């Protein structure tokens, strides 16, 4: 599994927003990008929100624009809107014939079938809540992978397992299910 998060932001109680990182590719398969540290000076104090975006918003999801994501082979073909995957989640399941079958749960910006020249932005932001920032604060966020398959849409892999990138309706279902996958685990000082 690999996925990209972007626009990690802290909103100070004064309303000032600090963006910590442009984007980060999390690669669970190779245990890379699992954390990042900021060298930016963050004002200690109370923050009303820690937010991040799953994927890249449309304005940032520019085809071929990011050398590190290109090198990581995370691109989406031009006929599917170009830009980058939001997530590649590949695995296997036992299908209705009791056989092991592959799935490729790949999340991208949905292609609008009424206008294939335009992509529908299905990235989304998440707010994991407020936090107190000290001199050395660690914020731990986890993904519950099972939520991709059940909340709010119960996922039947027998129906939707492969070739999902170009399926507009499926991408919308993925977008809906993604809203509950991330949780704040801990804040340590």
């Amino acid at each position, binding site marked *: 599994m690999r996925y990209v998060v972007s626009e990690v932001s802290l909103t100070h109680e004064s309303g000032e927003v600090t963006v910590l990182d442009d984007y980060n590719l999390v690669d669970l398969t190779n245990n890379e990008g699992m954390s990042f540290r900021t060298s930016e000076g963050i004002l200690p104090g109370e923050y009303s929100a820690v937010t991040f975006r799953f994927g890249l918003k449309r304005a940032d999801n520019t*085809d*071929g624009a990011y*050398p*590190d994501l*290109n*090198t*990581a*082979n995370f*691109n989406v*073909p*031009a*006929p*599917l809107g170009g830009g980058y995957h939001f997530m*590649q989640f*590949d*695995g*296997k399941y036992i299908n209705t014939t009791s*056989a*092991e*079958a*592959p*799935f*490729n749960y*790949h999340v991208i910006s949905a292609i609008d079938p009424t206008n294939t020249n335009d992509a529908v932005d299905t990235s989304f932001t998440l707010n994991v809540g407020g936090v107190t920032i000290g001199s050395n604060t660690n914020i731990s966020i986890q993904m519950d992978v099972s939520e991709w398959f059940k909340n709010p849409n119960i996922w039947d892999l027998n129906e939707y*397992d*492969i*070739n999902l*990138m*170009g399926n507009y309706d499926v991408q919308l279902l993925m977008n809906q299910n993604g809203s509950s996958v991330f949780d704040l685990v801990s804040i340590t000082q």
Partner: protein
Amino acid sequence: MSCSNQDTDLEEEYIPVPFSLKVPELFQQKLIDPLIPNNNPLTEEGVALGKKLFFDKKLSGNNTQACATCHKPQNSFTDDTRFSDGIEGVFGVRNSMPLINLAWNFSDRFAWDGKELGLERQALEPVINPIEMHSDWSNVVAKLEQDPEYPILFSRAFGTSSIDSVPLAKAIAQFERILISGNSKFDQYLLGNATLSLQELNGFAVFMDEEKGDCFHCHGSDNNPLWTDNKFHNNGLDANFNDLGLGTVTGDPNDNGKFRSPTLRNLTFTAPYMHDGRFATLEEVINHYSEGLQFSPTIDPLMKKVSQGGVQLSVEEKMDLKAFLLTLTDLEFINNPDFRD
């Protein structure tokens, strides 16, 4: 009467000149900077020494083979046989890998099974391998020390005329890092300097279509000019393995049957294909992915149509795909005099 110390005469002033790597325009646009280790920066002297060593048969036990024997420039730095034989006439069990764009392999794992961590380490192994060059380092060092040029070349490259395996491997790694291929017809097409035929364009479309070839998930795209992800996959060659590949290195059964995705550049010159060279032609390769996939427990989920044998391309789609793949041929690379002896 004056006396001179031979070693002193050979210890020239150590002023290495940084080597200016020729990074293709598309690589500059699309990729991050190549991986050059801090403890082995590219220098003119190091690259020159590495090139000389790469083509020198003194590195083998009986002076009959060089690195270039199995990694020929005219074959995009592989050879044209399924397996390669060493100086004793014993054949290996893996196909010689082409040496292309190695400085962009950020996993820094080399060979089909990823067993070699870093180019510097990889360069050491064939020299002593009994089924390859079958030499030993004392033998190699003695021969190089007796050569009128090598002590001077080592001194210029590394500041000492003392020769051993470490600077030798560093020099070879430096030479390998300059073997850059980025001037194919498709590269020129992306730069607006060439036109593709309808068949070639159709083939590219097959390559990039998730519901057809779906080659891009492992083998790059117009935005990844390496044409490989440099990762390890079980691509459905066998139901049962006689070669565990990455699994041999990691010991993890989940890695059994996985091999590194090779680049698709210069396929015209790099046949036969796959880790064991089982496919003599591109047609056989395409047929494998189209109808020939074999299920095994570790088969990559990207081999999505394994239950049907593969992606089921039409005859026309196969021909178009091959036509596109051939647009990744870089004649400049195989004819570059900087890469030849």
